[in-house]
């Protein structure tokens, strides 16, 4: 099953490689990994999407907790949460296709953020499934370039992953 693990980690050189090294050394898979500093510059927040049986996920969270640089973590998938991913896609947009692509972007609440006579860059934000759906709605041969951030997540309600 797919799990989204949010991690607060010391913002130090090499902290990211401790996490990625753990996953490769123990044979766990990483679907996506995003990381950036929080409002407290000494801490980074990481969102890691992985999958595995309950036993494997339990080991992953225990092994992550064991890393000295990991301050705190939660498995967002255990409770109600919000997940977002940002994608920018550069598409070939000429003649009649320009209108069609614009309409499609509107349906997905995408924004066109760069325009040339032959291309658009469209920004889409949403859950993985929405971003996937937008990609498959585009004509495959119109896509020039795709860049995705991977998922970021936060829990709903009062609870938060803080110190």
């Amino acid at each position: 099953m797919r799990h989204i693990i949010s991690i607060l980690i010391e913002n130090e050189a090499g902290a990211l490689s401790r996490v990625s090294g753990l996953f490769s050394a123990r044979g766990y898979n990483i679907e996506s990994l995003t990381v950036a500093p929080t409002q407290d510059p000494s801490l980074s927040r990481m969102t890691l999407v992985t999958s595995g049986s309950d036993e494997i996920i339990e080991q992953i969270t225990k092994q992550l907790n064991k890393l000295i640089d990991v301050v705190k973590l939660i498995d967002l998938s255990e409770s109600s949460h919000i997940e977002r991913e940002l994608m920018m896609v550069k598409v070939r947009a000429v003649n009649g296709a320009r209108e069609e692509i614009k309409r499609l972007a509107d349906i997905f609440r995408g924004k066109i953020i760069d325009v040339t006579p032959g291309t658009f860059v469209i920004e889409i934000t949403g859950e993985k499934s929405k971003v996937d759906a937008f990609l498959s709605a585009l004509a495959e041969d119109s896509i020039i370039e795709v860049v995705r951030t991977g998922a970021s997540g936060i829990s709903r309600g009062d609870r938060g992953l803080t110190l």
Partner: protein
Amino acid sequence: MELSGAEIVIQCLKDEGVEYIFGYPGGAVLHIYDALFRQEDVKHILVRHEQGATHAADGYARSTGKPGVVLVTSGPGATNAVTGIATAYMDSIPMVVLSGQVPLPVIGSDAFQECDTVGITRPCVKHNFLVKDVHKIAETIKKAFYIATTGRPGPVVVDIPKDITDPRVKIPYEYPRSVSLRSYHPSTKGHRWQIKKAVELLLSAKRPMVYSGGGVVLGNAADELTRLVDLLGFPITNTLMGLGAYPATAQHFVGMLGMHGTYEANMAMHDCDVLLAVGARFDDRVTGKIAEFCPYAKIVHIDVDPASISKTVRVDVPIVGEVASVLTDLCDMIQAGERRPDREALAAWWDRISHWQKVDCLRFDRSGTVIKPQYVVEQLYEATHGEAFVTSDVGQHQMWAAQFYKFDKPRRWINSGGLGTMGFGLPAAIGVKLAHPDSEVCCITGEASIQMCIQELATALQYRTPIKIVNLNNGYMGMVRQWQEFSYESRYSHSYLETIPDFVKLAEAYGHVGMRIEKAADVRPALEEALRLKDRTVFMDFLTDPTENVYPMIEAGKAHNDMRLSPGMIDARELA
């Protein structure tokens, strides 16, 4: 006090109470070596290879419980130390390794003797640091000792660039009194509710079994374990790493378990209905086939490391905490309650175990004149009255040492169980002897393993650490040969060492005493003679039966009740 970075490094070691540092100098650590030269509190042991430094520090740590300390230079100094760091990591040994690094401005430029030490060691340390500021040296070393010695112990590497140890830059020094890390809070006390559940389960057992590991030794919990086992009257088995945590000669001990464990220990594991695992990690050499591991048992697991729990085997009652504290709570709770173990069921269970014990699974042929390796270990045990510190290398001799030297005390049996590092025994013995100068220290080894760190014979002479080396020389990498006999139709692919040095001459060349023993009748007299040479390292080269195998054996992937016994031995299930 104003000190340079190099002086701070040494002063920190003094403030930590470090007695010995094992190391080898080189360019990046010359400032530190100069600071070391100008003091006498921290004694430096010059090894002949950095692997030896880590193993010697490791032996010191295992035999004392104090952290082992290592100092190596950048590049090859650090990479040579990696095997020893990984060895300590696998067996959770507290160790602090200080490594030199090229100066900060040239890091990343492929400078002379540069390597990414933090990157290379990351997967085999508990934690590591690259210090980038002279003001951070003291704080970082304090953290390193704290992390290495608390919770589940392990090695910590502190990589120190040369320029921050510059003797011309002096800064005020104060060693931090305490350290707290917001991201590191090792568990201490076990959860009371879990302990209560464990007590109920233990007292309801009809066929209980205690399985204890290296965590009991590391957690200084041997007394607490003995108290619990004697209170309950349950049978106990130790892992290879746990030997000595419960006295091997005490009545409840049924021997080591696992691949080369005793028949009775493994059969009892298979048939038990409640298993108490203490400071053990369900290693594959212990569990055999996971799907058939303790099929009838409810399992209680005490461990300081939450990640050890339910890693390979699901357990029913996990208790996270320091083993000594949890065992004390368990004993107290049992003693405070009314309920006692089921005496009748326990007597019937012991009857079954004694039936298994009748197989006498460690029996070996004593008739010939050829030296049986088991006999050498047995005689060493008697000649040293079971009181020696014994280090070993890896292979058949290691298993025979574990089977035939009956350890009654913890921290006496020093071996690389997790990583299985050949070359460990000799340097480890030097570390043990430095820590225990008045005790007998023996290294049980084989002709293949001993050659992997043989250069440390020079270290043993330089620091006058008299060790008794018991070399079980059968001409083969014995364990490899055994597996090739069993699993590869005796195709002995590259396991025979055609050219073996004359160990007597070699020992003499290094300034020690060498002895060659070729007949069984000469074994005991040779041991006695060697032990009489109190102030000399003696290399005893025993030419042993090259065809001898380690029995019993659970072949890889088989279950506890599927053991291969010595040829001619009868399985208890076939005994009347």
